[in-house]
């Protein structure tokens, strides 16, 4: 019997209510919500520092209020990594919300153990160098040790355990995105933990589903000539119909806008992928180069032939550290002699920055001219207008605020015709977070599963 997985979230802030037509229509057996990006955890850390009961995505509240009652009534489990940095607090909030709605007997599971921020010293003392995956630098040798997040990408196992314990909703911290979707397949079909080809097939299911709209016609260059732009505002989110052998048909919520074609599937298959023959996940190394795609009717693509190899001895660990703050200002400059004015403005700003030693990085770009493609973009010789975007950073917010004040004092003293966008003057400094991706021994991480009953 085909098992059907719906995907209703691809990032923090996605429209999780897209789960409702899937559930009400009887189109799915489980719905997964993928909420975490590299940036999201750093955002959640700010919430958690302000209030220790926070640190999870607010979408979980919406899921508990609007979706969980309908899913529970139909015995459709929900799985989300929106627990972020505080899956236990999120689970407790869901339990309270469910109790207030009278959902007696509902089971909420929290999966934790991914957060190793408090263990960084111990792990290094135990021999983990935590070398940067891209630069090879040893963590202890890095000058900036201001780490605010450190989360291991967990695999499917703790979610499978929670589902076997009868969880109606599973709330996790950092679980590798596709493993959220692999887990219910393992729980349903009983795939073995060394059945590499099927595990890899489940990873491809998850990889294609985890970015919701991006596989049903959103962000599709390949189908741009056939895109119903009005429909983009109400795309139906994707559903995978998975067989016991791991083959599956990718489709979407029936009777909704969007399109599932060979083009949309190919685009998503390679999204955020490096070596497609070695897509490394906590549970299996998946090979995308053996699979076959075949059109299988309207908005349906068959995926078969995925293969996999044994999992690695290490897990990925991503650390985030505070590297200061950035500020953006946008200036407009018009003809005549626009380029001369731009050079004069840059010289003037440079003089202001030079007398403020706290200013670290400064970056100029010309919006509409070279801000996307850099040196690929030839600059016009005598433009009617130039929009100059200036980004600058400092360790502290006060330096940036002071810099903006000093720049604004030149309002009547700058180059001819210079003007500044008022909305950017009124803006606030933004956090600059540096990432430190690394690997950690699998044996050092013990996921925990807690189940509470309403």
């Amino acid at each position, binding site marked *: 019997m085909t098992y059907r997985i719906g995907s209703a979230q691809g990032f923090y802030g996605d429209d999780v209510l897209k789960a409702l037509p899937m559930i009400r229509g009887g189109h799915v057996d489980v719905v997964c919500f993928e909420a975490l990006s*590299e940036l999201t955890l750093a955002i959640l850390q700010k919430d958690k520092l302000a209030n220790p009961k926070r640190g999870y995505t607010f979408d979980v509240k919406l899921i508990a209020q609007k979706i969980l009652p309908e899913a529970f009534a139909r015995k459709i489990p929900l799985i989300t990594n929106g627990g972020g940095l505080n899956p236990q607090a999120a689970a407790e909030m869901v339990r309270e919300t469910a109790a207030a709605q009278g959902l007696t007997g509902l089971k909420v599971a929290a999966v934790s153990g991914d957060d190793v921020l408090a263990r960084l010293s111990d792990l290094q003392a135990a021999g983990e160098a935590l070398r940067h995956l891209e630069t090879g630098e040893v963590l202890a040798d890095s000058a900036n040790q201001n780490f605010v997040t450190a989360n291991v990408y967990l695999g499917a196992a703790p979610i499978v355990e929670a589902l076997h314990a009868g969880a109606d909703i599973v709330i996790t911290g950092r679980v590798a995105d596709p493993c959220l979707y692999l887990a219910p397949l393992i729980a349903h079909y009983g795939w073995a933990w060394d059945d590499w080809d099927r595990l890899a097939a489940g990873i491809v299911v998850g990889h294609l589903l985890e970015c919701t709209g991006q596989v049903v016609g959103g962000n599709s260059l390949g189908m741009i000539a056939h895109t119903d732009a009005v429909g983009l505002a109400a795309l139906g989110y994707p559903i995978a119909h998975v067989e016991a052998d791991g083959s599956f048909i990718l489709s979407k919520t029936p009777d909704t806008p969007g399109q599932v074609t060979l083009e949309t599937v*190919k685009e998503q298959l390679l999204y955020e992928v490096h070596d497609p023959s070695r897509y490394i996940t906590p549970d299996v190394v998946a090979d995308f180069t053996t699979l076959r795609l075949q059109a299988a009717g309207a908005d349906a693509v068959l995926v078969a032939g995925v293969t996999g190899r044994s999992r690695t001895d290490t897990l990925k660990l991503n650390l985030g550290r505070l*590297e200061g703050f950035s500020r953006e200002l946008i200036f407009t400059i018009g003809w005549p002699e626009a380029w001369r004015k731009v050079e004069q403005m840059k010289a003037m700003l440079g003089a202001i920055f030079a007398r403020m030693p706290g200013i670290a990085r400064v970056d100029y770009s010309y919006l509409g001219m070279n*801000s996307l493609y*850099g040196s690929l973009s030839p600059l016009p010789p005598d433009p009617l207008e130039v929009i100059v975007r200036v980004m600058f950073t400092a360790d502290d917010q006060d330096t940036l605020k002071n810099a903006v004040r000093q720049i604004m004092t030149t309002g009547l003293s700058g180059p001819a015709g210079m003007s500044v966008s008022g909305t950017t003057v009124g803006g606030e400094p933004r956090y*600059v977070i540096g990432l430190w991706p690394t690997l950690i021994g699998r044996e050092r991480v013990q996921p925990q599963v807690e189940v509470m009953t309403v």
Partner: protein
Amino acid sequence: MRRLYDLAYGRSGDKGNIVNLSVIARSPEAYQEIKAKLTAARVKAHLGDLVKGDVVRYEMDNIEALNFVCHAALDGGATRSLRIDSLGKSLAGALLYMVWDE
């Protein structure tokens, strides 16, 4: 004149300071052409100062696509980049803009 976009489409994806650019052929003939001629070195030269590090090419004959992994290509990555397109969402377009033949 043809650009690479006449032969292929694609999408970019960010992971840390690395961006991957998929190049998906519009036909079997186009795939043979880009597979033969679109080398990593050619991509690196085309992208210029957008990519500070190495470019590695992967082939996917099964879906007639190439994947280019560009290192040090996002000004530090989404969380610290000063670029207006900090996620590199537009960068696949930079590659597809390549002049293919005159």
